[in-house]
C-alpha cells in the first residue's frame, strides 16, 4: 500500500515537472540594462543592453532598440529582432534620457518594473544627459556596461556624495506625500568614460531641478541619515580637504507657528590634504568653524531653492507629518512648506589630520 502511494506520488511529480516552462540560461537573453529616449512626437525609443559572454574574452555589449509608446510594445518589437527570449531577472540599471524626463516624465515607464515580479527592488534608476542608446554603446569596463554603471552608482553611494537611491527608495519617496524623489544624473564624456554629474530632483516623474556635483555633498548631508564625502575648505588663503568619516543629521521641530525646523548636522572628519605649512590646533579650529559656516550657507541655499521650486527631496513634509496628528498635506503644499523656516546647526569636529603635522 505504502509503495503504491509512493509510486503514484513520484509519477505525478514527474508529470508536473513538464507543466511549467523551462528557462535555460544559455538559451535566453539576460538583459542587464534598459534605457529610454525621447523621440520627437511623444514616442519613446527603448534600448536593451546585455552582455554576450564569449570564450576567454571580455563580454561584448550588445544592444537592441525599438520605438513605441509603452515599454511592453517596445519590448515586443525588440523580441522580434532577437533570436532568444529576453529575461528580466538580472536587470541592474534603468536609464532615462534627460529630455524624456523633462518633457514626458518617467512615471508611466516605471510601472512595468514595479509590476514585474522578476525585477528586484534594489535596481538603480538613473537619468542620463546623453541619449541612453548612445550611452549603452560605449565600452566602459571589463564586466559589461550595465555592471559598470551600477557599480559606479553603488560606489558613489557608499563612499562619495550620492545619497542612497534605488527603485524601492524612488517609489517609496514618490508615494510618500511629504517627499519628492531624486535620481542620480550621469553623463558620457567619451566612448569609454562616464561620470556622475549630479542629482536630479523630480516631481510627478518630471525633472524640476538638478543639484550639481559641488553641492551634492551638502545635499547628502540633508537627505541621507549617514554620509561621507570630501569637501574643500579655504581658510586664510590656505586650502584643506576635509574627509567626513561619520556624519549624522537630526531634525527638530522648534516651533509650529510660525513653522520652524532646526536641522542638527554632526560631522566627524579628518584632514586629507593641506596646502599650508603646519597644521596647528588653532588652525584646525579655524577650519572647523569655516566648514560649519559653509555647511550652513550651502544647505540653507539648497532648502530655499527647493522651497521655491516646490519640491521636497529632504522630506520636511514627512518629518512634520510624523510630529502632527491629522496632518493636512494640501495645506502643507499650498502654503506651509514655502513659508517654513529652517535653521541649520552644524557641528564639525576634526579628530585626525593624517600621519604628518
Amino acid at each position, binding site marked *: 500500500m505504502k509503495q503504491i502511494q509512493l509510486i503514484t506520488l513520484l509519477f505525478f*511529480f514527474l508529470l508536473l515537472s513538464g*507543466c511549467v516552462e523551462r528557462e535555460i540560461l544559455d538559451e535566453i537573453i539576460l538583459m542587464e540594462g534598459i534605457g529610454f529616449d525621447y523621440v520627437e512626437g511623444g514616442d519613446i525609443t527603448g534600448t536593451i543592453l546585455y552582455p554576450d559572454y564569449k570564450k576567454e574574452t571580455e563580454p561584448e555589449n550588445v544592444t537592441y532598440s525599438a520605438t513605441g509608446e509603452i515599454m511592453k510594445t517596445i519590448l515586443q518589437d525588440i523580441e522580434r529582432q532577437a533570436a532568444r527570449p529576453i529575461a528580466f531577472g538580472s536587470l541592474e540599471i534603468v536609464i532615462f534620457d534627460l529630455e524624456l524626463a523633462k518633457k514626458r516624465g518617467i512615471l508611466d515607464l516605471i510601472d512595468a518594473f514595479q509590476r514585474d*515580479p522578476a525585477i*528586484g527592488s534594489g535596481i538603480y534608476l538613473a537619468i542620463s544627459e546623453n541619449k541612453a542608446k548612445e550611452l549603452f554603446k560605449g565600452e566602459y569596463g571589463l564586466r559589461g556596461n550595465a555592471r559598470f554603471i551600477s557599480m559606479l552608482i553603488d560606489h558613489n553611494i557608499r563612499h562619495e556624495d550620492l545619497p542612497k537611491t534605488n527603485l524601492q527608495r524612488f517609489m*517609496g519617496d514618490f508615494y510618500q506625500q511629504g517627499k519628492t524623489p531624486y535620481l542620480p544624473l550621469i553623463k558620457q564624456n567619451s566612448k569609454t568614460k562616464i561620470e556622475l554629474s549630479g542629482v536630479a530632483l523630480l516631481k510627478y516623474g518630471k525633472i524640476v531641478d538638478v543639484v550639481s556635483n559641488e553641492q551634492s555633498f551638502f545635499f547628502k548631508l540633508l537627505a541621507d541619515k549617514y554620509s561621507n564625502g570630501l569637501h574643500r575648505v579655504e581658510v586664510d588663503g590656505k586650502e584643506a580637504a576635509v574627509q567626513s568619516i561619520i556624519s549624522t543629521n537630526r531634525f527638530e521641530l522648534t516651533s509650529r507657528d510660525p513653522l520652524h525646523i532646526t536641522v542638527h548636522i554632526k560631522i566627524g572628519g579628518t584632514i586629507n590634504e593641506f596646502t599650508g605649512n603646519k597644521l596647528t590646533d588653532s588652525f584646525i579650529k579655524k577650519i572647523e568653524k569655516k566648514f560649519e559656516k559653509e555647511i550652513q550657507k550651502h544647505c540653507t541655499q539648497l532648502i530655499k531653492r527647493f522651497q521655491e521650486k516646490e519640491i521636497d527631496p529632504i522630506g520636511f513634509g514627512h518629518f512634520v507629518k510624523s*510630529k502632527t*496628528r491629522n496632518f493636512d498635506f494640501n495645506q502643507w503644499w499650498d502654503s506651509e512648506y514655502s513659508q517654513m523656516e529652517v535653521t541649520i546647526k552644524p557641528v564639525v569636529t576634526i579628530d585626525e589630520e593624517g600621519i604628518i603635522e
Partner: protein
Amino acid sequence: MNRGVVMNKPIPEQKKVAPFMLFYIVASIQIGVGILSFQRDLVKVTGYDGWISIIINGIGTIILIWMIVQMTTTIEGDLLDIVSFSLGKWISKLIGLFYMLYFSLFSITVLRNYVEMIQVWMFPKLPIFWFSLVILLLVLYVVYGGFRTVAGISFFSFFLPMYIFPLFLFTVPHADFTNLLPIFDHSVKELFFGSYQMSLSILGFESILFVYPFLKEPKKAIKWAYLAIIFTISIYLYLALLSFSYFSEAQLVKNHWPTLTMWKIIRLPFVERFEYIGIATWCLIVLPNICISLWIASRLAKQIFFIRQKQALLFISGIVLIVTSMIMKRSQVLFVSQLLGKIGFFANYCFIPILYFITMFAKKVKKQ
C-alpha cells in the same frame, strides 16, 4: 450524565499527542497565506497605526482562547460535545456541518491562494488542477496517518521555514521608522475596524476546539495555546513594523503581496532573486494549514454522518480539488478569501462568545 459521550468514543491514549504540540498546531494553522498580504488591508483602514490594531486583535483573541479553554475544560470534549451539552444533539450536528464546510473552504482558500502566488511570481503556466492534485495527494497521505502525523507535520512546518523570518531584516537599511509616527493618528473606531481586518488573517485558532480530545493532559496544553497566539501576533507585528517602515503608505496599498515584495530587495551572491526560494519554502507553511483543516473537516463528517474518516476525507478532498480548479481569476480568489474572512469572523468572534455564555448558563442550570 455527560451527553457528549453519546457521540464520541474516548480517544485511545496512543492516538493522543503531547500537550506542547498544541503550540505547533495553532501556530502553524494561523500562519498561512493571510500573512503575505495582511498589511495591505490593514493600512487601507488604519494607516501606519495598524500595529495597534494587531495588538487589539491579539488581546481579543486571547480572551477568545480563554473562553474556548473554559468550555473545553468544563465539558471535557470537543465543539460537538459542548454544543450538544448546551443546545442539544441536533443543533450540534448543524453547527458541526457549518464548521465542516468552513474548514473545507479554509483549505480551498489556502490552496488556491498559494497556487495563485506561484502563478504570478514564478510560473504563469502552472496548471491549477495538477498542482492542487499533487498537494492534495500529499495531504491525503499525511492525514491518513492519523492525528499524530498531522501534528508532526505542523511541528516540522514550524521549524523548517523558520529561517525565512530573519531574512526580512534585509529591508532595515532602506527603512524609515519615523513612518510610524505620530501614534494614534486614527480614531478608535478605525483601529477597531482594523483589528476586524486583522481577524481575517489569523483565523485558525478555533482548531483548539476540535483537537482538544487528542491532547494528553489537556490542562497542561492550555499555556501552549496562549503562547501560540502570542507567537503569531508577534510575527504579524514584526512584519507589520518592517513593512510600514519600508514602504510608504500609498505604495503599500498598491502591493498585492507586501510580504513577498519585501524580499525583492534581497540580493545574495549565490542567488539573484530570493522570492523563488521563499515561495518554494512557503509550501511547507501552507501544507499543515491544509492538513489540519481537512483533518478537522473529515473528522466532523465522521462524527455527523457516522462514516469512516478516510472516506469522508477522500470525498472532501475531491470537492476541494474541483472547487479550487474552478476559481480562475484574481478577483474570484479575492472573493473567496473575503468570504472565508467574513464567515470566519462570524464563527470565531460572534459564535464562540455566545456559545460560551450559553454553556456557562446551561452548566449552572444543570447543577441546580
